[in-house]
């Protein structure tokens, strides 16, 4: 005879779910609207999505306030974990999503935006990422990850080009492999410790002093490979450039920011305690992975002939750079990760929006791909302002002061210095020098070459609307004047990371 389980509603702390529920409600609402009246314009759905994301953001601000007051919150049978990492990363996820969904307000008509399902899937995806970062339960992380990933595969495929299908299938296959590796890794952890909660796993492993180190390593290998796919770390990166090329610039920019921060947070939760447990082997592997990811991606980026593929390799390299924070594993490095990613979001939002604004439906003869370097030849002559703006985003990505990413970069390198990773700091610095070349390459095309054909610069703003221009303006201000807001952001991030125990 089973006795009834009594759980008081208060102990569930359902408010922890609020930020994730809001986009789900929004997605359902969009689907319901479509049932009642089809054929509505995309602007409606964009605005509804933005409204719900704003609500989501407010809910997060609220959660942030509670966290600042009461510290870490647990909820729903302790499956939900609302700590500083969760809140910070959700800020980035939701904040970036608001801007990227607004990119749907393009001048040209694209296939995917005629489906309300696109926007519903987008919101489901966000909720998936939010679940992923707000838990230390390996199963819930898995559920969040898969919800988000499956939605993302579909969003890419909806772009309705041959290359998009290829990209979606490629991403799906790699994602499925990563999911398999992830579940296998979790299984080994469960077998070892009898728990699927990361902090429990850490406690149990510490208690028996890593007696079964062989099995731990097996589990770590699987996990590392799985996150390698999600974070596009070399050698698991092969899908990235193809997927970026196949998806629209708006979606590619989104993929370079949001899924990665979610994966970084999980990686931070999982690998941090393993690194600190003095499992030397893991440190060596991560070290090698970070260095190879940064360097190899930079070298591949040198030979790209398409700006979007170049940016794909650049984002791989940036991911490697940021992964160093998890390797270093100090409070400063973890704060640097968030600082870097916030600044990176601004810059990448801007640069991908610039690409998106110049999207053509039919390619002229001299252009082999959507955003080949030749397309930007002599841009300073035909549309000087756009060229200067694009150049500023490239300089920021190259880490030139005083633009946004420079500050992220010095804080990250400084955390390597203080963490005792001198050689790593030097490698990170020298990699920025290699990266300088391919960002400068675009500037060379824009500023120093003659235009390929006589054009009036129409092509660079062919897909622009007031909304997209406003987004570029916003990210431009964020990129140039980052140093003004730096101190509050840094203090805020450091407090949150420190109070979460990282």
């Amino acid at each position: 005879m089973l006795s009834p389980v009594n759980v008081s509603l208060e102990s569930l702390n359902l408010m922890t779910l609020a930020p994730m529920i809001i986009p789900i409600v929004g997605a359902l609402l969009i689907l319901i609207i479509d049932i009642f009246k089809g054929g509505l314009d995309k602007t409606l759905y964009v605005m509804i999505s933005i409204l719900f994301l704003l609500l989501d953001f407010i809910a997060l601000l609220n959660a942030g306030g509670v966290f600042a007051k009461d510290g870490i919150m647990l909820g729903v049978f302790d499956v939900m974990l609302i700590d500083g990492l969760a809140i910070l990363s959700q800020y980035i996820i939701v904040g970036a999503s608001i801007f990227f969904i607004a990119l749907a307000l393009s001048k040209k008509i694209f296939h995917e935006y005629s489906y309300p399902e696109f926007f519903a899937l987008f919101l489901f995806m966000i909720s998936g990422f939010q679940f992923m970062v707000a838990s230390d339960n390996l199963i819930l992380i898995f559920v969040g990850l898969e919800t988000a990933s499956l939605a993302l595969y579909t969003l890419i495929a909806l772009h309705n080009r041959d290359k998009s299908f290829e990209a979606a299938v490629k991403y799906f296959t790699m994602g499925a492999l990563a999911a398999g590796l992830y579940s296998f890794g979790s299984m080994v952890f469960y077998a070892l410790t009898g728990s699927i909660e990361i902090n429990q796993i850490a406690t149990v492993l510490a208690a028996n002093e890593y007696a079964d180190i062989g099995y731990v390593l097996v589990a770590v290998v699987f996990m590392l490979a799985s996150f390698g796919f999600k974070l596009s770390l070399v050698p698991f990166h092969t899908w990235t450039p193809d997927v970026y090329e196949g998806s629209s610039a708006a979606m590619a920019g989104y993929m370079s920011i949001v899924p990665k921060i979610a994966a970084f947070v999980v990686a931070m939760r999982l690998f941090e305690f393993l690194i600190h447990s003095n499992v030397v082997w893991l440190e060596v592997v991560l070290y090698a992975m970070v260095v190879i990811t940064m360097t190899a991606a930079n070298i591949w980026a040198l030979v790209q002939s398409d700006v979007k593929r170049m940016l794909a390799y650049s984002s791989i390299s940036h991911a490697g750079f940021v992964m160093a924070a998890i390797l270093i594993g100090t409070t400063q490095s973890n704060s640097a990760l968030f600082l870097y990613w916030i600044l990176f979001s601004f810059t990448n939002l801007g640069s991908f929006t610039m690409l998106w604004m110049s999207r053509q439906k039919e390619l002229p003869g001299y252009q082999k791909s959507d955003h080949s370097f030749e397309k930007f030849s002599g841009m300073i002559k035909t549309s000087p302002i756009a060229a200067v703006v694009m150049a500023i985003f490239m300089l920021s990505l190259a880490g030139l002061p005083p633009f946004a990413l420079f500050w992220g970069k010095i804080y990250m390198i400084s955390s390597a210095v203080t963490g005792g990773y001198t050689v790593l700091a030097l490698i990170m610095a020298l990699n920025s020098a290699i990266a300088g070349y391919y960002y400068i390459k675009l500037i060379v095309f824009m500023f120093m070459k003659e235009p390929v054909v006589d054009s009036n610069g129409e092509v660079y703003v062919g897909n622009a609307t007031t909304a997209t221009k406003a987004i570029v303006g916003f990210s431009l201000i964020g990129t140039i004047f980052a140093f003004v807001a730096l101190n509050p952001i840094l203090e805020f991030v450091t407090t949150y990371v420190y109070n979460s125990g990282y």
Partner: protein
Amino acid sequence: MLDHILSILIFFPMVAGIFGFMVHKDSMRAYGVAVGVIEFSLSLWLWFAFDNNVSGMQFMEHLPLVPAFGINYILGVDGISLFIIILAAFFTMIGIASLPDTKDVKNMIITLLFLQMTMIGVFAALDAIVFYVFWELSLVPMLYIIGAWGGPRRIYASIKFFLYTFTGSLVMLVGMLFMAYFFYQATGTWSFAILDWYRLILPESFQLWLFAAFFVGFAIKVPMFPFHTWLPYAHGQAPTIGSVILAAILLKMGTYAFIRFSLPLFPDASVYFMYPIAIIAIIMIIYTAMVAYAQKDVKQVVAYSSVSHMGVIVLGTFALNVEGISGSVFLMLAHGVVSGALFLLVGVIYERRHTKMMDQFGGLAKVMPRYATIFGLMMMASVGMPLTINFVGEFLSLLGFYQQSHILTLLAGIAIIVGAIYMLAAYKKMFFGEVTIEENRNLPDVNKRELLALIPLAMITIWLGIYPKPVLGPINNSAEAVVQLMHNKATSEEAKLRIPNVSGVVISKTSMKEGH
């Protein structure tokens, strides 16, 4: 207004540059000249208000930027940086005024104004990160100037220039972050303020590594042998204005940074590395002088001679005494004036003939007497004739190093003779003899616009050659302060011995006057 004069000096050109987008391109040159004149007047006002008897920093500004990480917007000038700032303002002014007719002149002038902001920022910054910001930012306008207005291989040259310096400065950045971390360990607070760092005494082993990290950044900028290969390329491809600014101001950033960072922060390491650096400097002086002799292109001659003289500056800096350091600072100014003028002169003939090959000339003295006169004067100055500006600096630099090593100074002195050989040879090829090429027969002499730039430079060359005191006095004061600081901070016996104690000895002002 004087409280913020440095900020005004830095950001006025930038704001003017942004407004410049609105100016019609036909009126752009006048606008550029006007901004240049205002900026130069402001810099003269700074000199006027500058207290010559104070050796420390003046006109300090302080604004917290990222206090959590110790980054503050700190500015200040002393005798060392004051004149380089004035020189930067001066060269931008005459550079814009003498700009020949170029395509996209509007973009060029806006770029020059932005470049001016970064140049003055570098010399006024007293926070390592602010310094680094301007230091790096100066690469971008120069990249554009070389890459957009340069010769046939301009893109290669501009990228080479950018990547070389970018790589070096990133290594320097790691050094700066280490320095800030050591400061944090010692005091518990982050700080990138240079004056704070001056108070920190580091163990010698740390000093050696940090010195090396900073050295990479500075040496590439100077550029020191064997990192100099980017410079002749950049000069060869750059338009005249690019070469002028590069030689007159941008290269000085490296040597200035040695005095601002390397010497006072790492006195023991400076002594430790004194001989290796002196040997590099002497190789640089002699080798590039010999290379200059082998050039057929007159601009390359000037470019290599410019590298050669930078070697003397480095040598003077690493004499580690007052004569050497004030001599090297003075030589920085002298080198700026003289090599800037020489590049302008090469530009003058290039405008007329569209070639820089010396065998295309000959007998120009008959055709262009005024041009030949000014060229001759500048050439004499470059060689280091007494009563010209270069002589004072070179003499003091070598005098300073003579106290450290007689033989090395002698070797460096030989280089001046080699300098005379290649310069005189170049002058002979271009100006003397008969006019052999028909096209040269009717070349117009220097016009008013060019004279506007050249006459003031010629006047400065002679004025400061005869009477250097107004400039040398403040420089000397600040150099004394640097040497004293180094002496006080030095920990090893060797360093205490090598770096003189200034306050103990009354510096004889007469030794300064031996210059003329």
